[in-house]
C-alpha cells in the first residue's frame, strides 16, 4: 500500500509524443536488455517483505508462494500475501530546469536524463519492482505514482517525452519534502546537473538517507561544462536568468575549471559522507557503458 498520494497529470496522447516516447522506450530497452545479458540477480530482491495474510490457492498462482507449513496444519493450499506485490519502490527524479537544456542533439542534458530515467524505469519494472517518476524544476512539475505494471513504463515514457526545460531549479528543498512524504524505504535515483547550492542539495539528500532510502545521484554534465573548450570572444547567457557575461574563455578557463572542481569535490564529499552513490554521467559519451559500470559496481558492493 502506498503511503504517498501522487498527483497524476493527465497524459496527453498526442501522436508525435507517442512516437517519441516509443523511440525513447526502444532506446531504453536496448540499453537495459544489453545490461541483462547473462541474467543477473537483482540486489534488491527481498527488500521490504512484509506478510499481511493468507488466501486460498487458486489455479494459476505460483506454487512457490504456497505456505507449506499452513498446509501441514490445515491440509489446505494457502498462499502468503504480502503488503506489496513488489520488493521495493524506485523513485526516479528528473531535473527539468532550464540548466538541463544545454547541449545539442544526443548530448543534450535533458535528453540524456530522460533516456536514463526511462532505462531505469524499464530496468526496475522489468524485474517486477515498482517505479515512480518525479519531474521537477523549482517545484514538482509531474509526479507519477508507483506501479509495477508493465504498462507503467509506457506512461513514464510518454510523461518524460512531454517534459520541456523550464524555470530555475531548486533541488534541495524538494528532496527534503520528498523525504518527509515517502515513509517507506526505497530507492531514489536523482538525475540532475545539480547546479544548486551544494549545502542545500546535500541536506536534501541526507534527509532521504535518514528516511532509509538508498540514494543514487546521476550527476549529468555536458563535456563543455567539464572541459570549457571555448575560444574567441564569447557572450555567455545564463539559462536560468543568472546574467550575461562577455569574456575571452581561454583566459578564464583555468579559473573556471578550478571553481568547477571545487564544487565537484565538495559535492562528492557530501555524497560520500552520507553514503550516497554519486555517478558521473558524461552526456558526450554513450549511456550504456555508464549504466553498466554503475550496475556492476552495485552488484559488487551489495
Amino acid at each position, binding site marked *: 500500500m502506498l503511503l504517498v498520494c501522487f498527483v497524476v497529470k493527465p497524459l496527453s496522447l498526442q501522436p508525435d509524443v507517442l512516437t517519441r516516447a516509443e523511440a525513447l522506450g526502444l532506446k531504453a530497452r536496448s540499453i537495459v536488455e544489453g545490461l541483462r545479458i547473462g541474467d543477473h540477480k537483482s540486489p534488491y530482491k527481498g527488500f521490504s517483505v512484509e506478510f499481511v495474510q493468507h488466501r486460498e490457492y487458486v489455479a494459476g498462482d505460483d506454487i512457490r508462494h504456497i505456505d507449506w507449513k499452513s498446509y501441514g496444519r490445515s491440509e489446505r493450499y494457502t498462499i502468503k500475501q504480502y503488503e506489496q506485490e513488489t520488493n521495493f519502490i524506485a523513485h526516479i527524479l528528473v531535473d527539468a530546469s*532550464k*540548466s*538541463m*537544456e*544545454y547541449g545539442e542533439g544526443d548530448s543534450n*542534458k535533458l535528453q540524456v536524463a530522460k533516456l536514463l530515467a526511462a532505462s531505469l524505469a524499464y530496468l526496475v519494472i522489468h524485474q517486477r519492482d515498482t517505479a515512480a517518476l518525479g519531474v521537477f524544476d523549482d517545484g514538482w512539475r509531474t509526479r507519477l505514482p508507483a506501479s509495477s505494471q508493465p504498462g507503467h513504463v509506457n506512461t513514464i515514457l510518454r510523461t518524460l517525452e512531454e517534459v520541456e526545460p523550464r524555470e530555475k531549479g531548486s533541488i534541495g528543498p524538494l528532496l527534503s519534502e520528498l523525504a518527509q512524504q515517502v515513509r517507506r524505504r526505497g530507492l531514489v535515483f536523482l538525475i540532475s*546537473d545539480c*547546479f544548486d547550492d551544494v549545502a542545500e542539495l546535500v541536506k536534501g539528500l541526507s534527509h532521504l538517507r535518514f528516511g532509509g532510502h538508498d540514494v543514487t545521484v546521476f550527476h549529468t554534465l*555536458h563535456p563543455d*561544462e567539464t572541459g570549457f573548450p*571555448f575560444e*574567441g*570572444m*564569447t*557572450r*555567455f*547567457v*545564463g*539559462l*536560468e536568468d*543568472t*546574467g550575461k*557575461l*562577455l*569574456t*575571452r574563455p581561454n*583566459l*578564464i578557463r583555468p*579559473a*573556471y575549471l*578550478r*571553481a*568547477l572542481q571545487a*564544487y565537484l569535490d565538495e559535492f562528492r564529499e557530501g555524497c560520500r559522507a552520507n553514503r550516497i552513490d554519486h555517478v558521473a554521467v558524461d552526456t558526450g559519451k554513450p549511456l550504456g557503458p555508464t549504466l553498466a559500470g554503475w550496475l556492476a559496481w552495485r552488484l559488487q558492493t551489495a
Partner: protein
Amino acid sequence: MFLAPYMLIGGLAASIPVILHLFYRSRYKTVPWAAMKFLLTSVEQTSRRLKFQELLLLILRTCLLLLLAIALARPTFQAAIGGGDAVDAVIVLDTSLSMQARSGPNSTCFDTARDAARTVLRQLPANSTVQIVTVSDTARVAGPLDPGRLDLATALLDDLVPSDRGSDLHAGIVTAERILAQAPSSNKELYILSDMQRGAWETRGSEIKATLDELRKKATVSLVRCTPLGRGNVAIVGITPQTTLRSGERADFAVLVRNAGTQPVKGLTVTLTLDGRDDRAESQALAEVSPGETRAVVVGTRIETPGRHVVRAVVRPDDVEGDNRLERVVVVNDRVGVLVVDGAADVRDPRKSASFFLSHALNPEASGLPLSIVPVERAAPRDLGGKELCVLVNVPLAAVGDRPGLSPEFLRALEPFVKEGKGLWVIAGARVDPKL
C-alpha cells in the same frame, strides 16, 4: 627634433590596436550557458588581472607602433644641444677632363676641389646631411646612401676620380636642386666645386644662371673655383707614318702637337712607343709650342714583325694629362718580295743566265730576301702575287721565232701591278727589241 619628421605620420598606426580591440569586442558568439555560477566565480577571481593584462597588452602594442614611427622619424638629441642649425647640403663636384689640370707641383684641380669638399664637410654643423653629386657631361648622385653620415661622405670623396669627359655643370645643378627640394631642413646649402672652364659656362650659361637664381631663393649657393697652375695645354692630335711600314725596318712617324691653351708651352718631350714597350721608346724634344700652334715632331722606331701594331705618342710635361697621349693602330707589311724574270736562262750553266749576278746582288749569301727567279717562258701572272718588285732581265716582250717572250697574260697583269705602286725594273739585253 627629428631628421625625418614626416615619418611621424606613421604614428597614426598606433590607433590600430585600439581599433582592433573595439572591433573584436563587438564581434562575439553567444552561448547559452548553464554553469554560470562557476563562470561568474572565475571571472570574479580573474577579472581584475585579465583587465590589467588586456590593458597592458593594448598599451604595449600601441607604444610599439608609436616607437616604430618615432624611430623612423630619426629623433636626435644633439639637434637640441646644437641649437637646431643643422644644414642639408649638396656638393656638386666637377669631374670633367679639365679637372686633371695641375694646380700645384703635385696636385691637380680635382685634388684641390676634393680638399675643398672635405673642408666643407668638416665645417657642416652637427646633424647636417649631405649629398655629393659628380658632374662631367652627365650628373650622378654619388652618395652617401644615408645623408646623415658625413663620415661616409668623406670616405666617398677618396674614391672619386676625374673622368676624360666634358663638362655640363647645368646637369649637376639641376640634380642638386632636386635633392634640395626634398630636403626637410630650412637651412640648405649648395657648393659647386669646379675649375669653371669657359666652355662649361658658355654652352648653357643662361640656363645655369636661371637655375642658380631660383636656387638662391631657397638655399645658400657657393661657387668654389679650383684654378689650374698655368694656362697652357698641349695635346697630341695626330700620328702619321712617314714611310711605308715594313717589318725589320725602322719607321718614322710625324707626331702633331697642338697647344690649345692661351699661353706658350716650353720644354716638351714627345715619346713614341710601339706596342707599349717602354724599353724601346724613342723621344724627341720640342722647344716651344705657341698658343693655337700645331707642331710636328718626327720620331722613329724600329718595327720587327709584320701585322698590326699600336703606336703611342706621349707629350710631357703638361698641366692636363688627359689629352697628352694618343694611340694609333698601324699595319706593317713583310719585307719586299722580288720576282726576277730571266729572258736568257741557262739551265745547264746558271752562271750564264742573265739573272745570275743580279740575283746574287739582291740576295747575297741567301739573306732571306723573298726572291723568285722564273724563266721568261714560264712567267705567269700568279708569280706576281705577294711581290713588291718585278725585274725583267733581258726579256723580250714577245716571242720571236724560237726565242720565247713574255706571255700576253703576264703583260696584262703587269699593268695593275704597277698601278698599285709596286716596282717594275726593266734591264735591257741582247734579246730585248728596242723597237717594242
